[in-house]
């Protein structure tokens, strides 16, 4: 009854507006538009404009003429396809590693008392302050042919030949997981700490074991955070350069390397821009997949 009344009141005040004075409408429009204008201007100048410029650049070949040559090359050359496949595969593996390591770790951290939890979150954030380069080389020290792991294993007599740990996809994924794990953990911890602990009690009161309550109550409620973390990790992984370059040792070719080579070796802005555009579209496609997944999983 009350809702109906207010709806009617709303309809009555709103009714004269469409046919009403244009001055009033303009004022209303300005009242909503003006406060958001600075934000929109920044988004336009620093996000939309560069993107459009990138698309514009990608339409010129190396002689400065408009053509679809850059895209044609990406579509036709096998080397490009392989690079895209490698990039997506390495990113996906990084996401999987983050899921496998990050979900249990986040569960553990949110189960801690408030103060200890803050300490652990600080520990997680700590690596974010160190340089990517330093961390990549640190992994090299550990993984390379005569690195820490191989020399230990050789000394222990467990292996006769050093294991090929560095300069491959394994080392790349390892290094990227190390860097991306904090990025994954933050939204997941955020989502998990928002879950009412009383729900787990309620599940237990009805007879659920801890594992069952975790699976049927805790995880589904943490899912939005987990999906957000995974999407973030995936999208950021697509653009990695330093880690694959050092830990992949030339055996892992990713998109960012090809872009760098187009620019530094061939000074071909068009070609580099085209790869960038394709990557951007692929990223949006992934976001779309993630959003759809979220909708599907959260419905029911």
């Amino acid at each position, binding site marked *: 009854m009350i809702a109906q009344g207010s709806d009617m009141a709303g309809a009555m005040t709103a009714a004269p507006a469409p046919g009403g004075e244009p001055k009033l409408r303009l004022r209303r429009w300005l009242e909503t538009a003006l406060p958001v204008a600075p934000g929109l201007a920044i988004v336009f100048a620093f996000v939309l404009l560069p993107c459009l410029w990138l698309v514009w650049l990608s339409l010129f070949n190396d002689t400065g003429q408009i053509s679809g040559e850059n895209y044609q090359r990406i579509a036709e050359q096998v080397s490009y396809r392989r690079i895209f496949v490698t990039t997506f595969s390495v990113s996906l593996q990084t996401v999987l590693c983050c899921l496998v390591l990050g979900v249990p770790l986040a569960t553990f951290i949110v189960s801690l008392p408030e103060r200890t939890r803050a300490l652990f979150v600080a520990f997680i954030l700590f690596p974010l302050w160190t340089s990517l380069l330093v961390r990549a080389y640190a992994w090299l020290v550990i993984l390379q042919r005569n690195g820490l792991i191989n020399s230990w294993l050789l000394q222990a007599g467990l292996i006769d030949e050093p294991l090929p740990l560095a300069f491959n996809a394994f080392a790349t994924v390892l290094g990227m997981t190390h860097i991306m794990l904090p990025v994954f953990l933050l939204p997941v911890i955020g989502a998990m700490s928002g879950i*009412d602990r009383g729900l787990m*009690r309620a599940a*237990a*009161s009805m007879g*659920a074991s801890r594992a*069952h309550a975790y699976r049927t109550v805790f995880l589904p409620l943490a899912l939005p955070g987990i999906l957000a973390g995974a999407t973030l990790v995936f999208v950021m992984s697509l653009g990695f350069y330093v880690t694959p370059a050092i830990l992949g040792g030339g055996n892992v070719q990713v998109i960012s390397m090809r872009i760098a080579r187009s620019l530094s070796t061939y000074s071909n802005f068009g070609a580099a821009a085209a790869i960038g555009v394709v990557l951007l579209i692929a990223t949006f496609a992934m976001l779309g997949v993630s959003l759809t997944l979220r909708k599907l999983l959260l419905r*029911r």
Partner: protein
Amino acid sequence: MRRGRLMAPKSTGEIARASAQAIEIRNITKRYGDQTALRRVSLSVEPGEFVAILGSSGSGKSTLLMALAGFVQIDEGAIILQGRDIAPVPANARGFGVVFQNYALFPHMSVIDNVMYPLNLRGVPRREARARAAEALATVKLAGFEDRRIDALSGGQRQRVALARAIVYEPAVLLMDEPLSALDKSLREEMQIEIRELHDKLNITTLYVTHDQREALTMADRIAVMSRGEIVQVDTPERIYREPSSEFVARFLGEAVLFARAAAGRLLTGGALAESPGRDLVMLRSEDLRLDPAPGEACLSLRARVHAIVFQGDSWLVQLDTAEGERFCARAQRASAARMASLASGDEIDLFVRAADIHHVRADA
């Protein structure tokens, strides 16, 4: 023990009734560091009985309920169910129904999925589980809400879903932790009667924690009053209100006028006070003090000076001072406005109390 005044007519096809279980709490003690939350608490509840655990915050009432539910590990004592001590049994193996203060409904599930959750855990086939859950929802008057989302429900509706979820698997014992405290007053009073009716229909042993004395009086067969981790009195609502054993209970429920035994002997005239060894306070209920003697009944009178008269809607509150300077209150429920207007601050008047309304209670230490 059962009063049956809220007994609902038994209808057919409702969630039918698991045999109610007796539960006996023996000397439970729970300490947190050097704080004792529960001190040798004992209480035995008969099958199908509705017991309210009443106390203010910090009295240990919620700790007691959580100990019964299995979420608080007790340090000493036993909880006997069907001749077995269930104190070491984990919460998820006790098989009790629990209704939590904040409802604790699963926000990612629909109403029916929430109610089906305990049935799914018990391996009830999906079709049967759905039917039973729908039946439980109908029992709490929520038929037609099956596919709603939890966040689309009002507080009262959530409360009903929580109730349906706790009774759908026919638990031997139902534990409720202030389930109505988040609701507004009129809805709360409506739900009190509904829950009591539901209890009578399902014949389910119920322990109900509340800080609201009126709620406890309305709903329970017996009330256990708790203070500082101890149960200070267990009795029927009538007896606990009329004949509190201690000063604490007398003050906690209703309005009490308390005089020391010796002072009461001097102040109350027209009859002798009964002897009651060990109970050195005399207690009257404010509403039992009358402006006129009750015809045909033995009354004692009390001379006092009027301090203030306040109209409070359902009654007049009169503040008075005894000849010895003690302030107390009388409540006149059926006095006419003219009668009350004839009283003025400073008047010396005689109040009457039936001898049967005078009780003796133990003074608090």
